[in-house]
């Protein structure tokens, strides 16, 4: 019997597709159901953040950072505000520093919960785990709403502090939430982690070896799942992360399941950090006196933080005026997405959506 001849076909996926996390397009080359090559096409949500950032003044840019990675707005603000503070040498008050850590770590819990929910969505468990996870997001956005006044786009971090002190009810409600998180994660793990379907679909799918992950510049849970325990919170502690006790979760294989497990472990660590921050929260001012006209000195500065998705950096150039001369965003999703073709080759077409889900991208940040 002679071998059957096969021919590759090209399939277009997106930009409107239920599991591409927004407007993201893939050009797939398939041999039967096996993926030969993937070409990601991005830019469908290119909203010109960097150009508009040059027209805005320094203070006006904070609300725009909310809309980069709209699942974790607090982290984006944190990175921008820290970069400007490094440029202008402003030191926020102690209380503000702790409040920022609380907000950012709550954000990490939400982000990972949504990442897990979407991953299950893409495995075919349509929307039920998603609803489960979103219930917990609602609790966090309620906390955001009571402090900042907005559910999704808080614009809470200001240069030199935070915009308002915590309301009276925040502390008990936040404590209640953080105490409940481990229990919820246990429940989630009981439902999902040992589930045979999840194990079979995710084990050894989309393997990313550690050296390749570093070559592609991957950061965040994607890199740590490959077994590289690189976390900027530990490698180059910014703000007051050196005062907290937490562990870095790392995987061994670097497949989709490891990324899921790393996210689960990170949620537990984040809850631990919030607990410590609530315990140590000092009294006092929450912001340095604000100026109407803010002019940082000339110079350029790069500051990066460990956002839920990876390294989020801002490269700012100031010419001493009210507007940034250059406002560049180093977005984790954009860089992490480069590893997608490597991970997809040789897998079935159904695995492509899981691999996208496991990278955890937000198009607002990929395209900026």
């Amino acid at each position, binding site marked *: 019997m002679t071998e059957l001849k096969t021919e590759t076909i090209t399939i277009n996926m997106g930009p409107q597709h239920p599991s591409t996390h927004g407007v993201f397009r893939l050009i797939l080359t398939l041999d039967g159901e096996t993926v030969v090559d993937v070409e990601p096409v991005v*830019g469908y949500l*290119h909203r010109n953040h*960097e150009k508009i950032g040059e027209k805005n003044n320094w203070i006006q840019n904070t609300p725009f950072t909310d809309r980069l990675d709209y699942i974790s707005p607090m982290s984006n603000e944190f990175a921008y505000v820290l970069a400007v503070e490094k440029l202008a040498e402003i030191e926020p008050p102690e209380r503000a520093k702790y409040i920022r850590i609380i907000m950012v770590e709550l954000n990490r819990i939400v982000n990972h919960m949504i990442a897990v929910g979407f991953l299950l969505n893409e495995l075919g468990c349509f929307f039920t785990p998603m609803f489960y996870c979103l219930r917990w997001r609602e609790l966090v956005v309620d906390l955001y709403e009571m402090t900042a006044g907005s559910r999704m786009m808080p614009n809470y971090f200001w240069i030199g502090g935070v915009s308002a002190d915590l309301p009276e009810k925040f502390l008990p409600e936040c404590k209640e939430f953080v105490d409940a998180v481990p229990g919820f994660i246990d429940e989630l793990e009981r439902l999902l982690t040992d589930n045979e379907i999840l194990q079979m679909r995710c084990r050894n799918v989309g393997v990313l070896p550690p050296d390749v992950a*570093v*070559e592609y*510049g991957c950061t965040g849970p994607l890199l740590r799942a490959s077994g590289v325990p690189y976390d900027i919170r530990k490698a180059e502690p910014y703000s007051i992360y050196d005062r907290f006790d937490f562990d870095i979760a790392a995987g061994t294989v670097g497949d989709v399941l490891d990324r899921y497990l790393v996210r689960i472990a990170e949620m537990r660590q984040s809850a631990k950090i919030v607990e410590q921050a609530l315990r140590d929260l000092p009294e006092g001012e929450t912001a340095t006196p604000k100026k109407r006209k803010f002019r940082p000195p000339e*110079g350029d500065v790069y500051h990066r933080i460990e956002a839920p998705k990876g390294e989020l950096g801002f490269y700012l150039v100031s010419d001493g005026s009210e507007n940034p001369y250059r406002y560049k965003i*180093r977005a984790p999703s954009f860089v992490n997405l*480069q590893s997608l073709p490597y991970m997809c080759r040789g897998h079935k077409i159904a695995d492509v959506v899981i691999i996208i889900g496991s990278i955890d991208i937000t198009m607002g940040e990929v395209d900026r």
Partner: protein
Amino acid sequence: MTAKETFDRLAAKFPQFPLGYLEGKDTAILVKGENLVGLAQHMRDDEEYDYCSSITGVDYPDRFEVVYHLYSTKKEGGPVILKVHAERENPMLPSVVSIWPTANWQEREVWDLMGIRFSGHPNLTRILMWEGFEGHPLRKDFPGSEDEYIFG
């Protein structure tokens, strides 16, 4: 290790490369375009700077500048910042994709938005805008775009 020590060591190691020391909030090393790949190779292989975090193009009145932020996942310290100048007319720099594959999309972005070409790049096409778009939006002299299409 401070940035000054890194600079002194590199300057002693590569007497044939004219390196510049740029002091500021973040201290940077100024490299000539033709020496960039050689220095990058050394940074990755011998100094363990295996992770190129970000590549940024900046449009200054007299020149274009590309900034490389290097970190290491194996050792403490960083960033080492390399700055390369390109001339205003037809800016062209060597690509570092062969050294850090992560540069692929970042260099495409710099080409798309800032209009700096990278020689030796495997696929230097526009990434955020569409093919056939005229101009490079992040340049300071970009005039803005206009549409013919309006739904009536």
